């Protein structure tokens, strides 16, 4: 085909309706065109490849409409803009525009695209959307102050850009509507417990605990322990059901557990103590799920360890010395704990304590105004003021019977209903109800009361209607700048993954929340509140995909994988995130830092000496540690691999998506799969050589593969490696012990199964898409750190997407740049960046 030189048409750059046709100018004409005109720029630098016949990369500029507000065309133009801005187009080996020419073009194009994008946003960036499953559960829990588990009853939410709270991913199907009703039923049963038990604190000394245990269990405990004063002393690890534990909870709720513990005779090293839950169902909790925390007991002085958790009825909390030998695997040649010659380490438990349910009484108080309840059959007597039989110690099941159901004692049920609804509605709707709404629900209550229904049933019914209303289930915002109440919700769903509390709603009612300094103070308050932990967990789960860290069970080739490592690796990343956030450290620390949050188990895994105990603490990293930043943390390296082998593609894509914010295009269909060969003959990297030679692969893989290659020095658990580990020996393949196996015994290396074969050496060198060579991850990180703005930009975008529920659009970019600037002026501090996000117009508009 010939190029359409004959087709001469007028350019229509600025007219939205006209079609933009490129005309290939002759040599003479080209000189006539001033090169600051966009059309001339394209003609000169782009059209050789992007014309109607060559259509390089599927793009023809000929006939490409300049209707920027058209959603599809908009995307195309943004892509053109981005590639030119990144300097990727025109390609290096083609004729290049001057810096000035490029700048002028980009400025003009930016303005057009910004205006068009703004136009698209006139009704807001984000549409009305329902609460995500996680938001729903947290909101129900906070509203009713009950630990009810409802997530599993609702359909899973779809992820958009990795997040579960994005408008487009939150379709509302009939199943949702039916399930919301079931979830509300379940929640309200919990909200009106048959028995109110106020806050209790129950403390037992170690000795009391043993005495409290039925004698029949003593033979599994006593020979492996001793009593010292009032304390119980572990000499071995027991089964968790036989370990020191609290009484079972009478009601579900949030509880605080504390214990006083001390280590003895452990060569000056701490003994890590598991704090875990024992479910009513013995098999109710998977290994790691039962663990509430691991904290160290030290020698010399008792210290208090503690954990807070939602417990369901009938659960108890136990402590267990993690590093003591499990009683049933006691070695034959070591004196047993009941042998006078025993001289092993011990864990002293002075006392344990369970406090709770925290805040439950308050909830009932606030919902039901402290109204008195009595069993149904005593209602008349109670009203008549007669003395009642003591029912406070009845079995909980008694209250299920219709004649014993607890009823409110009131002479004025309608007034009570109106008052209680007046308190409930603003919280449930997260803003004051309109008069119509208030009248509607009070009317419903009155109708039901008139039909003879008792007040407690009426309230449950009407509250259920509220919990199934648009105002509860949906986040409703009007176009333009958010009103105060919508802003309160946006802030609380951002930092708490849940509804605003009274203080936020009051500030909103007074119209003060929108004041920058008030908003800032509130953001600080929310972050410091215990619910602020939800931001840490939920945001890292999705931004970094940390939620999937433990999904894949590693191959038996990696026998060093144990529960401690599994627990520690996720903990490291979350604690790292908190450390950066709390200390306003630069966002570049996510790429590289000279410190990390470690414990002994991670020290062993990373080959860093001198860390004792399982407590996580900030550790300065040795210069040659090859660690620092999240991208070289075990959790991240594990979640980007398969069970037996690492995938440079997955890891590379992860860096581009999560750290640089430049996600690669999805792979083309029907590409032949790479089949790993764990016999050690070929490395993945050798198999990936094809990416370089095949043009269709190369355009993306020259970006994806380099970071992946740089990370090749880390195995599937994030351990450092210089050679690949394989399952079988072969020629030139060595047989070595596992250095980082926690239970390794040096003398038995040759006979123990904790040894592996090492095959080919790892090659971690590469070249970035811009052509910069690096030898390994340390050098690659330095290249990344040269552009801190991009790291800040990505994080600003991720926070905006997460907090507003909508992907970043072109018109948001100017705000993003302001956020980046604010961070840059404060040494790229992460907290500064977070505040700048909250203060930005994108955050504060629909």
């Amino acid at each position, binding site marked *: 085909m010939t190029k359409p030189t004959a087709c001469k048409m007028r350019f229509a750059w600025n007219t939205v309706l006209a079609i933009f046709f490129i005309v290939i100018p002759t040599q003479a004409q080209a000189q006539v065109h001033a090169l600051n005109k966009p059309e001339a720029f394209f003609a000169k630098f782009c059209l050789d490849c992007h014309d109607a016949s060559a259509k390089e990369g599927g793009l023809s500029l000929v006939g490409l409409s300049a209707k920027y507000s058209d959603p599809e065309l908009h995307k195309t133009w943004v892509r053109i803009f981005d590639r030119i801005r990144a300097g990727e187009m025109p390609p290096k080996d083609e004729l290049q525009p001057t810096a000035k020419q490029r700048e002028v073009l980009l400025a003009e194009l930016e303005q057009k695209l910004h205006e068009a994008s703004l136009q698209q946003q006139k009704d807001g960036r984000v549409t009305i959307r329902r609460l995500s499953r996680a938001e729903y559960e947290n909101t129900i829990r906070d509203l009713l102050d009950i630990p009810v588990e409802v997530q599993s009853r609702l359909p899973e939410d779809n992820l958009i850009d990795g997040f579960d709270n994005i408008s487009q991913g939150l379709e509302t199907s009939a199943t949702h509507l039916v399930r919301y009703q079931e979830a509300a039923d379940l929640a309200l049963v919990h909200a009106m417990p048959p028995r109110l038990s106020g806050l209790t604190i129950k403390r037992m000394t170690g000795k009391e605990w043993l005495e409290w245990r039925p004698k029949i269990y003593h033979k599994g405990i006593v020979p492996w322990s001793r009593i010292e004063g009032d304390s119980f002393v572990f000499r071995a690890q027991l089964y968790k059901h036989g370990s020191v534990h609290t009484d079972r909870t009478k009601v579900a709720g949030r509880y605080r557990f504390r214990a006083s513990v001390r280590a003895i005779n452990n060569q000056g090293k701490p003994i890590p103590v598991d704090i875990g839950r024992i479910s009513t169902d013995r098999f109710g909790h998977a290994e790691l799920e039962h663990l509430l925390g691991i904290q160290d007991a030290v020698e010399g002085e008792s210290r208090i360890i503690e954990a807070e958790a939602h417990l369901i009825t009938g659960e108890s909390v136990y402590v267990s010395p993690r590093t003591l030998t499990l009683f049933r695997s006691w070695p034959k040649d070591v004196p047993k704990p009941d042998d006078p010659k025993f001289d092993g380490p011990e864990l002293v438990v002075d006392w344990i304590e369970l406090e709770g349910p925290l805040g439950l009484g308050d909830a009932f108080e606030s919902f039901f105004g402290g109204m008195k309840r009595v069993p149904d059959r005593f209602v008349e007597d109670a009203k008549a003021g007669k003395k009642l039989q003591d029912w406070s110690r009845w079995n909980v099941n008694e209250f299920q019977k219709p004649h014993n159901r607890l009823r409110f004692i009131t002479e004025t049920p309608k007034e009570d209903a109106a008052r209680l609804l007046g308190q409930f509605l603003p919280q449930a709707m997260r803003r004051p109800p309109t008069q119509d709404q208030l009248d509607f629900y009070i009317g419903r209550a009155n109708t039901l009361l008139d039909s003879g229904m008792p007040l407690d049933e009426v309230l449950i019914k009407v509250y259920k209607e509220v919990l199934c209303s648009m105002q509860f289930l949906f986040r409703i915002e009007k176009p333009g700048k958010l009103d105060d109440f919508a802003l309160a919700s946006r802030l609380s769903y951002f930092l708490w993954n849940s509804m605003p509390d009274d203080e936020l709603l009051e500030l909103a009612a007074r119209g003060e929340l929108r004041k920058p300094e008030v908003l800032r103070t509130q953001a600080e308050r929310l972050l410091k509140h215990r619910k602020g932990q939800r931001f840490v967990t939920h945001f890292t789960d999705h931004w970094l995909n940390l939620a999937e860290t433990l999904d894949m069970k590693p191959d038996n080739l990696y026998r060093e994988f144990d529960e401690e490592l599994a627990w520690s690796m996720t903990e490291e990343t979350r604690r790292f995130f908190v450390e950066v956030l709390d200390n306003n450290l630069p966002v570049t620390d996510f790429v590289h830092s000279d410190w990390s949050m470690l414990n002994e188990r991670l020290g062993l895994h990373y080959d860093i000496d001198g860390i004792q105990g399982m407590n996580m603490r900030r550790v300065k990293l040795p210069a040659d540690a090859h660690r620092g930043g999240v991208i070289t943390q075990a959790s991240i390296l594990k979640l980007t691999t398969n069970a037996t082998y690492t995938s440079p593609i997955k890891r590379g894509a992860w860096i581009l998506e999560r750290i640089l914010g430049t996600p690669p295009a999805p792979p083309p269909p029907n590409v032949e*799969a790479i089949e790993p060969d764990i016999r050690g003959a070929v490395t993945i990297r050798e198999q990936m050589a094809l990416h370089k030679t095949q043009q269709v692969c190369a355009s993306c893989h020259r970006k994806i593969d380099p970071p992946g290659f740089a990370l090749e020095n880390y195995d599937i658990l994030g351990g450092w490696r210089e050679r690949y580990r394989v399952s079988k020996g072969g020629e030139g393949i060595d047989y070595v012990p596992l250095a980082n196996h926690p239970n390794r015994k040096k003398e038995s290396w040759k006979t123990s199964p904790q040894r592996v074969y090492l095959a080919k050496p790892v090659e971690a060198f590469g070249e970035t898409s811009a052509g910069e060579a690096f030898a390994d991850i340390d050098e690659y990180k330095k290249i990344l750190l040269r552009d801190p703005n991009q790291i800040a930009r990505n994080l600003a975008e991720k926070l905006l997407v997460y907090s507003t529920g909508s992907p970043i659009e072109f018109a948001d970019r100017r705000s993003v740049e302001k956020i980046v600037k604010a961070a840059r002026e404060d040494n790229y501090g992460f907290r500064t960046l977070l505040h700048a996000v909250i203060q930005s117009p994108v955050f504060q508009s629909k």
Partner: protein
Amino acid sequence: MKNQLSRRTVLRAAGASIALPMLDAMLPSGLRADTNGNESNGNDPNSAAPRRIVLLHRGLGTYHPYLVPKTAGLDYESNRYLKTLEAHRGKFTLFSGISHQGYPNSHETSRAIFTDAAPESLQGTIPNTVSLDQLIAEKIGGETRLRSLTMGSSNGAASLSWNRKGVPVPSSGGRKEVFARLFIDGSPEEIKTEMNRLAHGRSILDNLRGQLQSLKLDLGGADRDRLEVMETSIREAEVLLHQEEAWASKPKPAVDADVKEFSARDNSWIDGDNRWYALMRLALQTDSTRVIVYGISEHNNTNVQDLEIGHHDASHHGKDPAKIEQFARYEEKDYQNFAKFLDLLNETKEADGSLLDHTQVLLTSNLGDASAHASNNLPTILAGGGFKHQGHMAFDEANNLPLSNLYARMLQQFGIETDRFGRNKGVLTELV
């Protein structure tokens, strides 16, 4: 009576003892009458028995050399896996060279295994599309107590079933829960409470509709579009509640099986899957549902003799012969279980044939060769359903036939007049 005896025997072997029979007379009244001659609900006008469909998904692909025979047609030479299905030769078709088109190599394809949504849905930018089971369930509507059952053993339940809005259908629950919903009548008191709950549920939907109307006045265009979609959801939810109400007062079919047999703790995954299969048989036989999706879990609990490493671990065999052998043992046991399920269906006689004759049973996987994470050449078997089965149907292993061509054919077999499903490129009419 001979049949009954053998069925008992088989059921005992499967870990559940269920007395029989449950023939047409024991089905909920009124259901049979509806089924005659009504094509849109998927019933065969020439048969008194309704049509059913079971979609089974197992992860981790297959070791092809042990599954795919050298020759096509009915006279194939059974290799290791097909030997377990030898008794059913002629009652199923194994497809080779079939898969969803355009998927990158990743196990995330399970999201699309029964929907055939475009691969971009894995990137999370566009929603999934409706799955085969839900499309059929829509047609059946309220004719059965449950429109469909979506079940899975532990980690097998990862979203396989998707509704028209691209929302994953949540699991129907554990075996005990499903058994209770299908076969255990509530007390009159409980039924009354349930009826009240459902009636209240409908009035709540009315409220919601009212709230939508007033919101529309306040909000802009994009929001209004969203609310329009909500209105269809409200209508659908009303239908669901209506149907639940209609069924709530009807007595449930009597089966002589104890819930304990289904709620007991499994000794192994083999045990577990067999109990699920027994439950599925009961559900189909009593016409409590006609559509079942079941996700067979990865079997990482190795407490079965001769299995030394986990299933997932074995699937990444990396060509190591010892691992391949372990992997093959897992698969062999899966196919043995599958064969037992086909036995159960085949031995359950009804109307003019067996339950198997009226039930399309599809078994497939999200992966072909799991060791390479390859998502082509998916191991796919279709049994029963009144097809003239052809043993091994071989398609091009380098250039696969779209799996949705088969799905479109399955829809037709269900009496649904269409030649479209997912991104199909035709209908697999070679299967008649």
